[in-house]
């Protein structure tokens, strides 16, 4: 058996509030190249049916922390796409 790194990774994408309503789901596994960044996760979602309802650059979080656009993602990460925050 080869011990080579897998060529792709799978992350769990979470949607909330207005974004979850627009897409009709709250959680989706997404498989991407191992070199993927947060921006690639959003690009993948925006290519899905109805994906053009997501803004080009929504707020994102990776593993419960706000994440920059170019932050790399890893196998098993939880990537959340956050609508405009309205707490407080």
């Amino acid at each position, binding site marked *: 058996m080869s011990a080579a790194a897998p060529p792709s990774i799978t992350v769990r994408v979470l949607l*909330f509030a207005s974004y979850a309503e627009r897409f009709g789901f709250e959680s989706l596994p997404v498989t991407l190249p191992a070199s993927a960044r947060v921006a690639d996760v959003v690009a993948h979602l925006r290519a899905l049916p109805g994906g053009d309802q997501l803004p080009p650059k929504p707020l994102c*979080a990776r593993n419960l922390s706000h994440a920059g656009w170019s932050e790399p993602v890893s196998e098993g990460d939880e990537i959340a796409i956050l*609508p*405009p*925050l309205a*707490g*407080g």
Partner: protein
Amino acid sequence: MAYLTSAPIDVAALVSAVQAPERGGIATFIGLVRNHHGGRDVLRLDYSAYGPMAEAECGRILAEAQTRWPVAVALQHRVGGLEIGDAAVAIAVGSAHRDDAFAACRYVIEEVKRRVPIWKRESYADGTVSWVDPTAALQHA
């Protein structure tokens, strides 16, 4: 104590949590559900959250405030259905002197609004509902 709660916020409990013999002042901020938004009559609203991240982010904000000022901070934010006048968020900050308490209290509410993943859906008197987008509101403020 969890930062998010679906039960009414007990402000007195937050004040007690930051009370200590060496602290001479406690500043509080209470955010209430308002009956109007953008010129529309609001009847009630629902807060939803990305719970695990909201808890983590609140913890980080309180740790930052307590590193930056010599204060103790307690915070709770409601989730679920709220009526007009209900407390949506409450913060209590205790410190030796008032300047630090006011400054840290202001920091915490501003960072909560900016960073904690919580969303608000308002129900209006005309029967419509909508997710509140504070970034859109800024454009006609």
